[in-house]
């Protein structure tokens, strides 16, 4: 399914939907978020990261702490694709991360300097 033509570019990882049984290569991390939303809006299914090529090396499964830790590396905002991938290594699903991000945003604890890029306030 996923194109392999840009094999030279480093991939962010692969995502999967267990129900639809597909596995797709993701190059730009935030493409995973776009795809998650598109897929969910027609199926209700949750897409998950199945492999990630980003070695984030987080030692927390707390979304706010993870975002804080990644913020130094991404001063213009941590792409949600990167954040969800890093947290998936801590067994936090994309859905759980995005829900937590929504709650944090609604609590004023984080901000979004660019679309789908966030930072701790």
């Amino acid at each position, binding site marked *: *399914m*996923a*194109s392999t*033509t840009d094999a030279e570019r480093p991939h962010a990882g692969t995502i999967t*939907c267990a*129900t*639809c*049984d*597909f596995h*797709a290569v993701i190059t730009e991390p935030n493409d995973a978020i776009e*795809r998650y939303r*598109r*897929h*969910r*809006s*027609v*199926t*209700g*299914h949750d897409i998950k990261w199945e492999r990630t090529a980003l070695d984030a090396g987080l030692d927390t499964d707390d979304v706010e702490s993870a975002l804080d830790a990644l913020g130094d590396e991404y001063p213009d905002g941590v792409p949600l694709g990167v954040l969800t991938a890093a947290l998936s290594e801590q067994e936090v699903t994309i859905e759980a991360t995005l829900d937590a991000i929504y709650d944090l945003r609604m609590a004023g604890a984080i901000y979004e300097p660019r679309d789908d890029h966030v930072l701790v306030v």
Partner: protein
Amino acid sequence: MTRWNDGHDEIGAVSADITEETNALPAQYFTDPDVHEMEKEKVFGRYWVYAGHANRIPERGDYFTRTIGDRQIIVTRDDEGGVRAFYNVCAHRGSKMLDDTPMTDPGSLSRITCPYHLWAYELDGDLASTPKSFEEASLNPDLDDDAVRELDPAENGLMEVNLDSIGPLVFVNFQDDPDLTLAEQAGSMKDELEALPLGEYEHARRYVSEVECNWKTFSGNYSECDHCQANHQDWVRGLELMESELEVNDYHWILHYQHKEDVDDEMRIHEEHEAKFYYFWPNFTVNMYGTADGYGTYIIDPIDEGRFQLVADYYFRDSELTDEEEKFVQTSRQLQEEDFELVERQYEGLRSGALAQAQLGPNEHTVHKLHRLAQEAYEA
């Protein structure tokens, strides 16, 4: 003759006669982002487009949402038991009202309420109520309460979308005054499908795949079987392809595939001893398998010029599948994946820009029809 982008081949419009040289849609219509934008109006804004299956919203207030191009709609069951569609856009200041709710996981409500300032609408679209702050002008020192206009429920209701059905299959049309009725667009397909008990079957499975090619590339692949022998070996083993036939009508075409060995009548929803695949312009198919007591539908929804979403739905007597049905669905999925490989590969070739205009073979008359309809839509 194939036309290359080599500086001297010239492309032409899709010929009416398939034996002429320019019988295919120029390649640019598959790869140009402007064409994708144009199609939102000229194709998806003009013809009847599949919205979903009425069995999924049996009760008053049941609803699902659907996005077609940039248009977002709500499809719901009204107080009289009819199915209606509205733009998912509030009549107050245009907010999107309901969250995306797929037909496979429908919602239910008694009124459609906009979350922004809480205008609420009846299931027939009429404005049902507004908060008090829209009935009096207490915050506005320049206005008396008596001067506040009363909002007429019908005049301030939701924008309804034309809707019509073929059995339980619900279609919408975004033209104010559609050029064609659904019956005209569907022709004989309407009668044929309505003769079948489609409504007695339950939705069992939905698989959604994103594929990296233009939606018409997949449509073309679905419509011909010249590629089957080489690429669907497991599947063609049971078929008598030489006895099969591809039938073309005004806005739909039917692929009749004969089976080598006859199967029991209980194994089919339809009478004929064959598989019947209907392609309905612009982007919907009904798949009558011939070897399973059920049917499937495909929606071929463009994401952009180079990607589409295939929404594959399966309907069986019962939403719980038997082992045999499970196996059947898996075979169908295998076919999809085999086709995805082919169309992504074809699209990689098309995108490289070498080809200006393809050429179609004599048994690709269904693809020819698809290309003719696309051109007709662009020119309208």
